[in-house]
């Protein structure tokens, strides 16, 4: 079996009496889209926060590219090749779409200590940023401020910033939320091709997209992983149907 790109081992996190993550071990293998589904409040975002380093687990381990990164800050994990998109957009709202994408390109270049010369005039950064915007379909709004985008467009911009990083693994928190039918088809097609560049841990409520994309699906409920398997296995799983899928399966 190939070594996973990203994995957690026995992760625990409690907020007071609420156990938001309980003994979660999950992995992401090269070339796959691994979807994580579960009802609201299941602990999906909390799990992502621990994987990306914005939240420290109480117990357990996070491994990235064969290294224990449990104690590394988010920026260090990002530099190792982990790209995250946020469920609640974390963009520079006063800045334009292009500037947000440029920030990603600047992070990838890893050299922010340049005090002269316009960032927008840097052909290398700009090429990278514009290519990413083009891929998610935000090219025509490049000059618009992030604050003026629709919720769906902000999600797309989140994905574009992740693309500029040219990462080794993507972790996406509900990238389809707020997108119309056309937007989600477009993003589905993009993610489908993207797994060849880097595997994707995909938290998503849009079951059409999940079933179309996922190589494997894991189900979180009440902080616990209750199942992991192929699309067919998960659709057939009684516990999963009871906890989450209901009629969708």
């Amino acid at each position: 079996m190939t070594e996973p790109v990203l994995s957690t081992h026995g992760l625990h996190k409690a907020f007071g009496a609420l156990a938001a993550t309980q003994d979660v071990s999950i992995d992401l293998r090269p070339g796959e889209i691994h979807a994580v589904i579960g009802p609201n409040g299941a602990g999906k975002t909390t799990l992502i926060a621990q994987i990306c380093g914005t939240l420290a687990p109480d117990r357990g381990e996070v491994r990235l590219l064969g290294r224990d990164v449990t104690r590394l800050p988010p920026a260090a994990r990002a530099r190792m090749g982990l790209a995250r998109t946020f469920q609640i957009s974390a963009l520079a709202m006063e800045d334009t779409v292009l500037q947000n994408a440029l920030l990603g390109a600047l992070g990838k270049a890893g050299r922010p200590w340049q005090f002269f010369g316009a960032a927008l005039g840097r052909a290398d950064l700009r090429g990278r940023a514009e290519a990413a915007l083009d891929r998610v379909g935000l090219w025509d709004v490049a000059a618009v401020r992030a604050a003026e985008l629709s919720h769906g467009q902000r999600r797309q911009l989140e994905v574009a910033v992740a693309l500029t990083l040219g990462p080794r693994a993507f972790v996406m928190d509900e990238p389809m939320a707020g997108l119309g039918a056309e937007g989600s088809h477009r993003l589905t097609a993009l993610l489908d091709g993207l797994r060849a560049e880097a595997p994707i841990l995909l938290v998503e409520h849009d079951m059409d997209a999940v079933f179309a994309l996922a190589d494997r699906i894991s189900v979180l409920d009440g902080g616990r992983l209750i199942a992991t398997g192929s699309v067919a296995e998960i659709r057939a799983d009684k516990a999963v149907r009871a906890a989450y899928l209901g009629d969708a399966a």
Partner: protein
Amino acid sequence: MSRETLFNAAILALLVAVPGWALAAGEPFTITLATRAVIFALAAVGLNIALGLGGLVSLGHAVYFGIGGYAMGILAWHAQSHTPLIDGWLTLPGTKSMPVIWLVAIAASALAALLIGLLSLRTSGVYFIMITLAFGQMVYFFAISWPAYGGEDGLPIYVRNGFPGLNTLVPIQFYGICLALLCAVLALNAALARSPFGLALNAARQSPQRVECVGLDPVRLKLVALVISGAITGLAGALFADLNRFVSPVMFSWQMSGEIMVFIIIGGVGRLFGPVAGAGLYVLLEHLLGGVSEYWQIFLGGLLLIVVLFARGGLAGLIAGRRVAHD
């Protein structure tokens, strides 16, 4: 040309025209007032880099202003009293040379900003404000209780320091020096705001999480911004002491920190010429109303209230419209 460019150009024109008129009309006091405004503007441009770009509400910028002032005071005092500045295995004299004094003021205040930043940037929000204020108070009381350089009474410097090729005792010449420095720092500020560093710093103000997730360290970005900011305000402090030929612990006081921030709020936070407009208006009001009443700051308070309630963007926002993204 955008409205903001026009606004900036108009302020620059005033900075040339008013002292020019005063020179022609033989009104040296007006030149001194203009010099005061330009120096305050310089201090506030410094703070605006931390506040406007980095979102750092530092209520302790008087620390850097005062350090710049004392850098001038101490160096010039040793020179005028012919006592060595350092007398150990190495003997260093004082100096009356402005460029040397500026470099020392910039280096010392940058170092102070680095140390204060390392400690205070672990916090944010109201805690950051409180820590910067606390540092300001510590330095203020240290200055009062330190007897070597005049303590509470401060240090008088008898003759203004010199600049190669100029006669700094002539008000318009000293004004020219201050204005040239202000313009240089404004150009630096404009360059910073558009640079890759500025892009990252701007984002760190708006969303630290975003900056982390692209692999950059928002705290380090803000630390560098604070150091640049402190260095500029320190330079202004050296000039202020030279204008008054006097330095005292008042330069370290929290009122001073507050005033520097008021310049920015009146003029427009994060706007290139906001601090210049604010400092200019402040000095004008101080001059006009200060003659009417000792308590003229009541009017200033009223003005501040109006700005905060009705014109968040300050003068720049009012006249030049809302901030547009850098192109």
